[in-house]
């Protein structure tokens, strides 16, 4: 390996170990690799439009992969064909998946600088089908990741990607920081990217993309999502949680749709599971950061103690600088640790926040339905008011035994119950949750029962 490349490789490894950045070292490695051809598409805003009437763009024949991600446990082969850099912190991978039957699918994946995001693995943006180009912009990325500010340097409408007959087309739309496309310039050499796996999707997901039906439905799902506008942060949080539900359960969008169709309690259970799994994945990272913090703290304390023992001014000044340096490092480590711990805690709190919000939505929906029903009932009542035959009807009905009338009501309710149950599957899928003693609830229940009973008595008195 050339010395320059080795240096960059070491630098990348150091950066990965620090746990702070992920994409930047990969891009640096690609930029300095002699095998890699980089096409710099300057910012559309900076380009002279008369010189490039269609805007800065490039068309590249993707013949040789940058690197192959082959899993010995799967019959799906995945090749990283190109990397598209959107600034220094966000990049897209163009990956070709191929199964043993020779079926192929190409998709675009997203990688950012946060190693905690999606467990350090690229997120799927969409399938390159040849007839629908994929547009990339800051909002779309933030929506996909579920967090504002996760795409620094990416413009609102950054670029458009298309792949037709093996020709990759990348057009810089109106980006501020430009777009760079990295491809393999050779015919039969791969680059030796150590982290190629993180650019690709799990084999199970790629297998799903290889099935025509799923591919279409997934693409449709992604398109629909891109059209949604998660303006509020709450919605963005919820989107993140709902998206990761699907990821935890095999990144299946069908599972995600099922999640949306089931009740609040099911979603809460699944989100709780998701939070637990993510926090378990994050636990070693927290231990490492805690350890780094403890080391920085003891280093700071040691240096402070040494400062107190300094005998002359020069030594004192020298040790003071060392203390300041250690203090700065300690603060840095503390921030990293707090951020990590905060993220883990937030996952747990998000589960109950989301459940409460959905419960409130359900309650509001029932209240709204009640108002509509009352309005309809009032209209019926109004129509009946002038009906002179009502008294006569009542006198006839008085002869009907009560049990027969009860039967009428029971049959009507049964018919309505079966209609509702057939259209609402949510009540059948809720998981079993532990019951806690509810003495206060029992008291409230009593009050509620009294209230409803009073209403019933009042209506009977009126009769």
């Amino acid at each position: 390996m050339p010395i320059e490349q080795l240096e960059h490789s070491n630098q990348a490894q150091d950066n990965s170990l620090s746990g702070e950045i992920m994409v930047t070292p990969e891009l640096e490695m690609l930029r300095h690799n002699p095998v890699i051809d980089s096409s710099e598409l300057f910012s559309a805003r900076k380009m002279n439009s008369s010189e490039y009437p269609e805007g800065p763009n490039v068309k590249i024949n993707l013949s040789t992969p940058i690197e192959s991600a082959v899993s010995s446990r799967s019959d799906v082969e995945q090749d990283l064909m190109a990397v598209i850099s959107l600034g220094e912190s966000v990049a897209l991978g163009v990956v070709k998946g191929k199964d043993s039957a020779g079926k192929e699918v190409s998709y675009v994946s997203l990688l950012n600088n946060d190693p905690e995001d999606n467990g350090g693995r690229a997120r799927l943006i969409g399938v390159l089908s040849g007839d629908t180009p994929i547009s990339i912009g800051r909002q779309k990325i933030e929506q996909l990741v579920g967090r504002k500010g996760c795409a620094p340097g990416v413009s609102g409408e950054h670029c458009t990607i298309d792949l037709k007959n093996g020709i990759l087309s990348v057009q810089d739309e109106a980006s501020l920081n430009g777009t760079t496309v990295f491809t393999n310039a050779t015919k039969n050499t791969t680059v030796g990217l150590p982290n190629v796996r993180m650019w690709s999707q799990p084999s199970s997901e790629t297998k799903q993309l290889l099935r025509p039906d799923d591919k279409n439905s997934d693409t449709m799902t992604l398109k629909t999502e891109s059209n949604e506008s998660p303006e509020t942060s709450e919605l963005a949080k919820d989107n993140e949680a709902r998206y990761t539900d699907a990821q935890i359960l095999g990144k299946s969008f069908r599972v995600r749709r099922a999640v949306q169709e089931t009740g609040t309690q099911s979603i809460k259970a699944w989100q709780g599971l998701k939070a637990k799994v993510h926090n378990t994945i994050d636990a070693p990272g927290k231990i490492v950061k805690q350890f780094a913090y403890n080391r920085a703290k003891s280093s700071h304390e040691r240096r402070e103690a040494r400062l107190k023992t300094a005998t002359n001014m020069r030594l004192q000044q020298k040790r003071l600088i060392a203390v300041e340096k250690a203090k700065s490092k300690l603060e840095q480590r503390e921030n990293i640790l707090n951020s990590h711990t905060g993220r883990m805690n937030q996952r747990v709190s998000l589960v109950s926040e989301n459940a409460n919000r959905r419960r409130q939505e359900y309650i509001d929906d029932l209240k709204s339905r009640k108002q509509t029903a009352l309005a309809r009932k009032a209209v019926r009542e109004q129509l009946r008011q002038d009906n002179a035959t009502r008294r006569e009807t009542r006198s006839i009905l008085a002869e009907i035994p009560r049990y027969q009338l009860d039967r009428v009501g029971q049959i009507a309710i049964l018919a309505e119950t079966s209609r509702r149950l057939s259209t609402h599957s949510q009540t059948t899928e809720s998981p079993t949750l532990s019951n806690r003693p509810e003495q206060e609830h029992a008291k409230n229940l009593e009050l509620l029962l009294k209230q409803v009973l009073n209403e019933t008595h009042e209506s009977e008195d009126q009769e």
Partner: protein
Amino acid sequence: MALLNKELLKELGINLSDEDVELLSEHFDTTLRARVIEEIVQELSPEQASLLATMQSASDEELLNWLKSNVLDFNDIVSDEVDILLGELAENSESFNKG
């Protein structure tokens, strides 16, 4: 199967013991039945009421078919009463959680 069950109550954030759920469900059904009957009765003409009085030996299916064909807006009436009662329960669920 009861319209009001433990799962629906959980969806509303109300956690009750099995006995309390049964009690509430029973009361819910009784109240709903009374309200539905009240509404249906008001929709019947004297002729329809007389006919209903003669149908005491009819099967459930026959009775339901008769109600559907003789009571104007039968489905709406029942559905509205269910919605009203569920709405009342939803409103009370907030006091459950405050308590």
